[in-house]
């Protein structure tokens, strides 16, 4: 029997699988349901200092090769989120699963204010979502595209919060390794890679217009996987920080690709579509079987193996 528990920035996760932000993350009960099903850590939906309505429907589509979404960072605001996170923390404690609180902001000051409020709930990690691609009309280019901007947000959050800081990066960054080095130097404890790709667009030819009300949205699922694996590989080569490898993972073999690219833990998002929380147990089972077949005793042993070092 292989032990699949992992150490992420000094926190012990009972399983390497992490529920990614934006999926099932709106409330404590669904976060706990994912943890009961086998997630070692669960990420809440990104929250901002002030509440946001998000975009009108349609907001999420299955386009055939994965999902595309423009929910528009709908959230109840950091003060309300703090109460949800407190409840989540209490529900997760007996399960041994870690809580990752995701935050975002228009500006560095908004980020810091949201981090301060969310920190009061005592999450195990705070994840800085600097890479949402579907609010560009309103926010401009994400911080994650520019090393200096990414470092500025990270340093400010680092100064405001003594706990573990994860920074969620974008597959769209022209020089992802430079962004990774910048956030590492600014004090990040770990990196979540990656957010959705794009934005992309799906047009309904009978309606003669984009289907998403926001027109464009972040692309996830199978189409994102090879890009996400390459991103994790590049980040692992650039910095010595733990990585949650996220993007299109839906099997034990996909998860092992992420680990061999250099990930410590593996995020799941779109994979919950259709299958629901059963995906956690299935992937853990496939991962164990594959490790047994390949004579791999622990994930630690093959982490980064694809780098040939």
């Amino acid at each position, binding site marked *: 029997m292989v032990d699949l528990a992992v150490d992420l920035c000094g926190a012990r996760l009972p399983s390497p699988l992490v529920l990614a932000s*934006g*999926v*099932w*993350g*709106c*409330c404590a*009960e*669904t976060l*706990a*349901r994912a943890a009961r099903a086998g997630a070692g850590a669960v990420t809440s*939906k990104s929250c901002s200092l002030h509440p946001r309505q*998000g975009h*009108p*429907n*349609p*907001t*999420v*589509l*299955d*386009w*055939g090769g994965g*999902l595309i*979404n423009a*929910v528009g960072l*709908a959230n109840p605001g950091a003060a309300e989120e703090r109460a949800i996170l407190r409840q989540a923390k209490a529900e997760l404690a007996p399960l041994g699963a870690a809580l990752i609180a995701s935050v975002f902001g228009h500006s560095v000051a908004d980020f810091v204010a949201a981090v301060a409020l969310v920190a009061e709930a005592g999450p195990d990690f705070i994840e800085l979502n600097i890479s949402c691609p579907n609010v560009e009309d309103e926010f401009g280019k994400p911080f994650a595209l520019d090393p200096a901007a990414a470092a500025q947000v990270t340093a400010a959050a680092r100064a405001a919060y003594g706990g573990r800081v994860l920074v969620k990066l974008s597959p769209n960054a022209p020089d992802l390794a430079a962004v990774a080095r910048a956030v590492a130097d600014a004090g990040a404890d770990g990196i979540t890679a990656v957010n959705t790709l794009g934005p992309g667009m799906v047009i*309904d030819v*009978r*309606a003669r*217009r984009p*289907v998403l*009300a926001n027109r464009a949205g972040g692309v996830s699922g199978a189409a994102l996987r090879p890009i996400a694996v390459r991103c994790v590989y590049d980040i692992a080569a650039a910095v010595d920080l733990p990585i949650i490898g996220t993007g299109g993972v839906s099997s034990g073999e996909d998860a092992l690709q992420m680990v061999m690219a250099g990930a410590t833990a593996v995020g799941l998002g*779109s994979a*919950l*579509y*259709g299958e*629901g929380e059963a995906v956690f147990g299935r992937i853990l089972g496939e991962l164990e079987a594959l490790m047994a077949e390949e004579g791999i005793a622990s994930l630690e042993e093959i982490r980064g193996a694809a780098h040939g070092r």
Partner: protein
Amino acid sequence: MGDSTHRALRVARVVREGDAGCTLVLDGALPAEPGQFVMAWLPGVEERPYTIMDDDPLSLTVAEVGPFSRALCARQPGDRLWVRGPLGHGFALAGSRHLLVGGGSGIASLTLLAERAMARGDQVIAVIGARTAGQLMLDWRLAELGAQVIVATDDGSRGYHGTALAAARAYIDGRWPEAVYACGPEGMLRALAGATEAAGLPCQVSLERTMRCGLGVCGNCHCGDRLVCRDGPVFEAAVLRGA
């Protein structure tokens, strides 16, 4: 998972539902379980969940409560409407004597169930309630199906003077049905959950929540740890006791 792609159908017929809204009869079938729903999209306006009132031809019953539902009821024969689905899990028939309790537009979630039960040769009593006679929906459709219909209005303007729940009590307390199925305001559903539990009768309820994705991804429609779009919208009534 191609069931998420929008299908463009055309409106064949619009049936007015008194002052309450309308039923849109479309020009195609969408095989579904009773209680499943579609996301109905008007490009440039909105996309919202609607229960499948009938699946062949696909028919949606719309309560006019805001801009989107008014836009739906303003559709004319020949106009297009985009739908994706069927989504969610529906009702499961149990036994052969069925009591259906619909509050307001909630009856739309129970009409296809009545049709399927009648097709099996089962007995169906449908209790439908509304504030006034003008607000009643789908009494015509239930009559067309041959179900026994009990009408209840809060103001007594038609049928039983009182709520659908009060009208249904006599059948529940007398243990006429082998199973009870309901959709309507959550207060009514909670009271019904209590009444059926006391009578020892199984009860399934269809819940309503604001939905975004409709695919079990975003979590917006949660009720406790359940997702209404994915795990429901139909649940055993016991779910309301925990939530």
